[in-house]
């Protein structure tokens, strides 16, 4: 084989030096860490769908006063427990007909509701529009979740940072405090706090926020310990940078993915906590709507008026599902090494 190959000097020619410069050129645009993560997130179809579902829900929540067809707290006992109806009641499932003592009849006519007035998802036992209450309830859930999460970021991140950065005795004391708080189930801590405060929105946010920061503080502490031994941190210290500046310029930016992922993971928990507390009757005080109070009201009449339970349930499940899926997507995007 080898004998057949003839290599002559003119088989070789000098390489074109000018082309080399082009070869070295980087074809793809250089991406920052965040651009890269966003690119990966966009490839994840489930996460994108979850993102848009959330975007729509948040938009509806923000525009609640404009979108809600009725005032959520206006009672009208004559119109109590009306079934769902849209327009003139031609759409199946939204006909305005309901069963009373085994006989199906038009509840709207029976209650003397004027023509043209309808409640898309029906009314509750006090004649309040269910759809409007669900919209306001969702608004409240989302607001509580975001506020509580901010709260846990404001406590959790500095707590973890200080604990790891100061180390030694400070660290021991701070970790012991965390251990003591986490020796009581979170929800019970929240309940005890709610008992002391005046019932209301602020108390719920504080109670949920106060219990949420533990995980964040632990993660940040572990992360800070790791980053502390990095050379750029040592360099910054050697150059006489103040601790505060190192924290803001070096540590926090490098932990941003941990912070973002954990924040997203906390939101569904916060939504659940709020619903749970309102459900057992120590959350949002009446008459304001919360998904938890709607569920607890709906459950009482579930057998006869199942729609009053189904719609709030569907909304809270959709909300939590979307946040969970987006959180999973974000984790995969920011931390591609973790394969879920």
């Amino acid at each position, binding site marked *: 084989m080898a004998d057949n190959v003839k290599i002559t000097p003119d088989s070789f020619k000098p390489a074109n030096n000018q082309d080399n410069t082009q070869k070295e050129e980087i074809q793809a645009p250089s991406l920052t860490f965040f651009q890269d993560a966003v690119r990966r997130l966009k490839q994840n179809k489930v996460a994108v769908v979850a993102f848009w579902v959330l975007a729509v829900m948040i938009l509806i929540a923000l525009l609640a006063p404009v979108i809600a067809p009725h005032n959520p707290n206006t009672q009208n006992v004559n119109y109590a427990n009306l079934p769902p109806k849209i327009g003139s009641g031609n759409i199946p499932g939204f006909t305005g007909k309901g069963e009373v003592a085994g006989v199906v009849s038009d509840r709207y006519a029976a209650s003397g509701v004027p023509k043209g007035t309808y409640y898309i998802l029906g009314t509750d036992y006090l004649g309040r529009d269910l759809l409007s209450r669900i919209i306001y309830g969702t608004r409240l859930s989302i607001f509580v979740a975001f506020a509580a999460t901010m709260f846990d970021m404001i406590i959790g991140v500095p707590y973890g940072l200080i604990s790891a950065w100061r180390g030694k005795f400070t660290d021991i004391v701070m970790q012991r405090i965390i251990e003591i708080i986490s020796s009581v*189930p979170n929800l019970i801590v929240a309940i*005890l706090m709610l*008992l002391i405060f005046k019932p209301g929105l602020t108390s719920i946010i504080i109670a949920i926020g106060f219990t949420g920061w533990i995980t964040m503080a632990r993660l940040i502490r572990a992360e800070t310990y790791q980053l502390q031994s990095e050379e750029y941190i040592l360099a910054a210290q050697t150059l006489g940078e103040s601790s505060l500046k190192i924290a803001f310029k070096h540590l926090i930016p490098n932990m941003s993915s941990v912070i973002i992922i954990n924040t997203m993971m906390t939101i569904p928990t916060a939504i659940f906590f709020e619903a749970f507390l309102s*459900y057992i*009757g*120590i959350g949002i005080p009446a008459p304001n709507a919360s998904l938890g109070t709607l569920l607890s009201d709906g459950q009482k009449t579930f057998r006869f008026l199942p729609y009053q339970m189904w719609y709030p349930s569907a909304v809270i499940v959709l909300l939590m599902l979307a946040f969970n899926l987006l959180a999973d997507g974000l984790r995969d995007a920011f931390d591609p090494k973790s394969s879920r």
Partner: protein
Amino acid sequence: MTKYILKRIAWIFITLWIVATITFFLMKLLPGTPYTNQAKLSADQIRIMNEQYGLNKPLFTQYWVYIVGLLHGDLGTSFQFNNQPVTYLISNRIGPSMQIGAQAMIIGTLLGILLGAIAAVKQRTWVDSVATFFAIVGRSIPNFVFAVILQFFLAFKLKIFPIALWDGFSSSILPSIALAMAPLADTARFMRTEMVDVLSSDYIELARSKGLSSWQTVAKHALRNSLIPVVTIIGPMAVALMTGSMVIENIFSIPGIGEQFVKSILTNDYPTIMGLTILYSAALLVIYLVVDILYGIIDPRIRLSTTGGKE
């Protein structure tokens, strides 16, 4: 090892003391009164009641009496339930809660391990997607919603189970399933992650190259090794079961401690709230300790050190 355990046990007692102290003073800060219809009571009646419950003594004396009582296993007297001691209330009600909790834990972990393992073995196929989606859905449905849905279909419509009463095993099935949802979803997620890691390790490659069938590889090598870290989620799982029981027991009318806790919150029954908080905390601390010891025994790579503990 012994030194480590003793140290941990001492720390458990200190933690419980701190928890008891904080809850005691929190309860004293509470607005409202333990007496229903206080407005209708005369000043004399209130004075007599306060004397009976020891509420007229100085705060520190009350605290001292409470802590000394606690050391003797006395949690005080309930304000609401005919002057029953809190310990009596709890011991009467802990049985059903324990039973449902244990059943939920068994259902949750076993199914969760199975689901997670299947998802990991069938990685990146539709089976994996379905299992993962199922786990996320399980995490997204609040347990009280799931419980009501179960109750509606299986008890009310199909009449397979009793709707809400406490009478033997058949009435414990629905609440156990409702409670098992969260542990199931968490175990499945965790199990999948661990198993995916283990399946790509060298010793699994070796087992495969030795000619073991894929079933044998999974059952004998992968499953065992991925189960070790799953032990660590028992702690969070216990928390989920404790808090979950509060609503689940209410929905299914089970005379357990979760239902009692909610009831005492709604009626300002301070001694019962304190007693149950300390009980939950004690149970959780013991579970954390057992998990840490178990973890050290199962995984010899982790040695419980006398100096640090977990890290």
